[in-house]
């Protein structure tokens, strides 16, 4: 009987009975896997995150990320000690996530996969990437009213930036204990952009506005200049852009700097093909796996199953909606004062969630007028929305960390 008892003690069932909430977390993991696999919600991130949740919540598996406290002093241990005392998942988390390393590295890959061409061709529309950051700050204010402290509220608001690495980086810096739900909310709502944007558009835009045809406007009020040397422009632009952003908001350098370095090695071309491959494939793919698994592994029953999580889910949704509405409003205001009209859908895509938001906006426009292709225009505010939220993150980190 001794052996049977030892056998039972070895299994996870004892702990599972004494800590039944773990079962809820396992169910959550299955739901997230279902969303990622069958519903194709940002599978590249949601599947590893979900698997991380799964691994972390097997009792006795030793794969859960343990918060850094005054008592355990984890963040003062060497990584060898962390691995020994708390396992490899904590080692990976404290080395790659807690240090803030992976989000900039992923941003480097994002940069290497971003084409600033559409933004340069319609440069003025890039300005609409600004208004669509209003959701971040509105929800920040709302969250403080609900009792979140400023750092937590800022991490919650940044979900409205609709950009995964930016949200994760900000959460790491300001509220690491909320990292899991914030990451999941950010990626889930990005996956739900095809639902959220049409919803807001329906409420806020008239059919006439949706039918504003950007190409016709371009013909009525033509551009004064063409771009003669796109190749040179695309190489110089990330350098200049990086310098401008770095001087104005230095705390955004880790994100924006790596983004633009990735873009530079892409645009330079064959001379830096090895760096491009490293940035856009090797480093990015590897970083994505480790980011997903470790972020998922931060979610245990006692931190996740709290009212805060509910607020994050709600607040994240509101942040998305308000950002979209802000972008639309900005375009409408612009149209009041200008002859050359802008389709307010271009404002909505200032949200970022590249390139999904642009595709959704284009689909809406085409639904009302099958000749109204706005994709190239939407991409301009869409990409500048990434810069916009990275700047917003920089401001928040600069004042709060």
């Amino acid at each position, binding site marked *: 009987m001794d052996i049977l008892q030892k056998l039972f003690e070895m299994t996870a069932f004892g702990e599972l009975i004494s800590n039944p909430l773990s079962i809820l977390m396992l169910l959550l993991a299955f739901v997230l896997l279902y969303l990622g696999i069958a519903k194709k919600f940002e599978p590249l991130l949601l599947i590893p995150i979900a698997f991380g949740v799964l691994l972390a919540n097997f009792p006795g598996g030793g794969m859960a990320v343990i918060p850094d406290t005054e008592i355990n002093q984890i963040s003062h241990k060497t990584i060898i000690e962390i691995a020994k005392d708390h396992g490899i998942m904590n080692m990976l988390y404290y080395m790659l996530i807690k240090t803030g390393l992976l989000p900039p590295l992923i941003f480097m890959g994002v940069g290497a996969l971003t084409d600033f061409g559409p933004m340069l061709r319609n440069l003025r529309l890039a300005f609409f990437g*600004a208004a669509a950051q209003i959701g971040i*700050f509105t929800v920040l204010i709302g969250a403080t009213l609900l009792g979140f402290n400023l750092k937590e509220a800022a991490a919650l608001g940044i979900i409205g930036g609709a950009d995964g690495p930016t949200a994760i980086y900000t959460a790491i810096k300001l509220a690491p204990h909320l990292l899991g739900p914030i990451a999941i909310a950010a990626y889930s709502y990005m996956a739900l952009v095809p639902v959220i944007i049409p919803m807001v558009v329906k409420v806020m835009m008239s059919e006439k506005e949706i039918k504003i045809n950007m190409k016709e406007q371009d013909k009525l009020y033509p551009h004064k200049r063409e771009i003669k040397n796109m190749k040179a422009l695309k190489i110089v632009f990330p350098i200049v852009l990086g310098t*401008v952003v770095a001087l104005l908001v230095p705390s955004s350098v880790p994100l924006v700097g790596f983004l633009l370095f990735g873009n530079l090695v892409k645009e330079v071309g064959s001379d830096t093909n090895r760096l491009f491959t490293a940035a856009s494939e090797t480093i990015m793919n590897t970083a994505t796996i480790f980011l997903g698994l470790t972020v998922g592994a931060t979610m245990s029953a006692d931190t996740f199953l709290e009212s805060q999580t509910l607020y994050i889910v709600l607040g994240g949704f509101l942040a998305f909606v308000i950002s979209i509405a802000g972008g639309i409003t900005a375009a409408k205001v612009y149209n009041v004062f200008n002859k050359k009209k802008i389709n307010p859908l271009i404002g909505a895509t200032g949200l970022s969630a590249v390139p999904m938001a642009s595709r959704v906006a284009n689909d809406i426009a085409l639904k009302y007028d099958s000749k109204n292709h706005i994709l190239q225009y939407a991409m301009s505010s869409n990409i500048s929305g990434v810069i916009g939220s990275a700047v917003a993150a920089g401001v928040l980190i600069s004042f709060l960390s």
Partner: protein
Amino acid sequence: MESTLSNALILMVIGMISVFIVLLVVVMGGSILINFINKYYPESVISQVSNSKDSLVSPKIMAVLTAAVLQATGGKGHIDEVLKK
């Protein structure tokens, strides 16, 4: 609590101003840059090939494949791009 709220409001003002200024400078700076390059470097002098995220094959292979397809389709087929799956 009250001071938290006022700080949140200040953050909103500073944050949105920052975002607007940055993107304004980006738009204006980009515009100056376009004009500058149009004026002084209107034609590309450096290598034309840019790293595309989608190109799977080298130009050489591309040429071979194009030739093969042209031949195989009696001159009717063509390849625009070979994308990663």
